[in-house]
């Protein structure tokens, strides 16, 4: 049996794993370098084609007729007009057809929509719903409150219409969209 004992200070315990890790890192770096080298060669091969394409495009650009753009004051006036139009068309939340379509899908059978005031610029609507039972209207109100896109659902007024034989309950509800 050969004698391997010697008097040197014990090597650090992590020396071997560290050396192995460094060798692995060096191997990975060598592989990456080889891959990058291959990429460089590939890009170098593509370069003449790309340069020819660039030259062709530059020639096309040089040959294209030059059209003078509008003057600065005309551009300013155009910008103002566009801003005014954007202001007029600016709406928040849904459009009226979109709101009606959404209400049609969520109104219970026993609830009727009596009136609707849609204010798209303010991002709110005031609707009056009517039903023979307060429970149906309460259910409708809960559906509105559960809608994530609405910021506020407020029961602003509650009343009764009709005579004693055929009384109906009305809820006036204000809704506001999230900005």
């Amino acid at each position, binding site marked *: *049996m*050969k*004698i*391997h*004992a*010697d*008097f*040197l*200070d*014990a090597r650090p315990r992590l020396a071997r794993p560290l050396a192995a890790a460094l060798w692995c890192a060096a191997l990975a770096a060598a592989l990456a370098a080889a891959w990058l080298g291959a990429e460089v060669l590939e890009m170098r091969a593509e370069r003449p084609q790309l340069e020819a394409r660039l030259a062709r495009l530059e020639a096309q650009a040089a040959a294209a007729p030059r059209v003078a753009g509008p003057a600065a004051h005309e551009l300013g006036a155009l910008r103002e007009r566009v801003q005014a139009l954007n202001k007029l068309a600016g709406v928040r939340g849904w459009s009226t057809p979109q709101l009606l379509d959404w209400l049609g899908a969520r109104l219970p059978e026993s609830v009727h929509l009596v009136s609707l005031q849609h204010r798209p610029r303010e991002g709110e609507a005031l609707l009056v719903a009517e039903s023979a039972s307060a429970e149906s209207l309460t259910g409708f109100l809960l559906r509105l409150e559960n809608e994530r896109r609405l910021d506020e659902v407020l029961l602003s007024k509650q009343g009764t219409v009709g005579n004693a034989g055929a009384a109906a309950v009305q809820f006036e509800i204000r809704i506001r969209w999230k900005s």
Partner: protein
Amino acid sequence: MPVPLFRGVPSPEAAAALTQALRAVGGDLPHRFVPLHVSLPDAAVRWATFELDELPAAPATRRELARFRFQRDGGAAELACACQPLGRAGGKALLFGMAMDEAWRRCLAQALADAGLRAWTLSPNACRQFNRFHDRLAQSSGALVSLAGDAWSLALWDEEARLRYVRARWRSSRDDHGAVADEVGRALLAYVQSGNGKVARVFTAANGETDALAAALDERLREPCVRLEADAPALAAALDA
């Protein structure tokens, strides 16, 4: 060396002389990535093969046990220890241990560092000789007499090539082959007569003095010893590489 090494306490003069000598023999080694094996004189080392009931599992604990046994057997100096388990024999766990003066080990390590050298191993000459000729030596039990310029040693191993006994001494002169052979003969006789020791063959490795030492041993032993010589061309090629 103008100052004797491994005797007493290392002095600054000895450390400086050792550094200078290492620089001289190191040549361009500080600038090369080669494994550097440093050999110690056998006589600077204390040797023992301990027979233990149980072998501690942790290498550090084994080393501490060896240190304790060496210090118990004599010597108050701080010791540097190295040990190696050798398996089991006769129901006992064998632990081969070596010890040297820690102050001299530090001195040597510092001198190596000052000379820009970094040792891969630091072990006695007898271990190097034993490992070098191991395949020839390990075929049966035997003894190896190693001779260096300043010290000699006798290493004995059993049938399974486990070192069981090592005796090392400083040399008294360059012409002490007869005295060395006398002491080797006495040690062999004592080992064999101890009851469980067997020595099938005796080898000698003494570099340029192999023939002189072998002749002295042959005069005293019943069978001629086997001369071991390093392969000079291969050694030179290895050193030149």
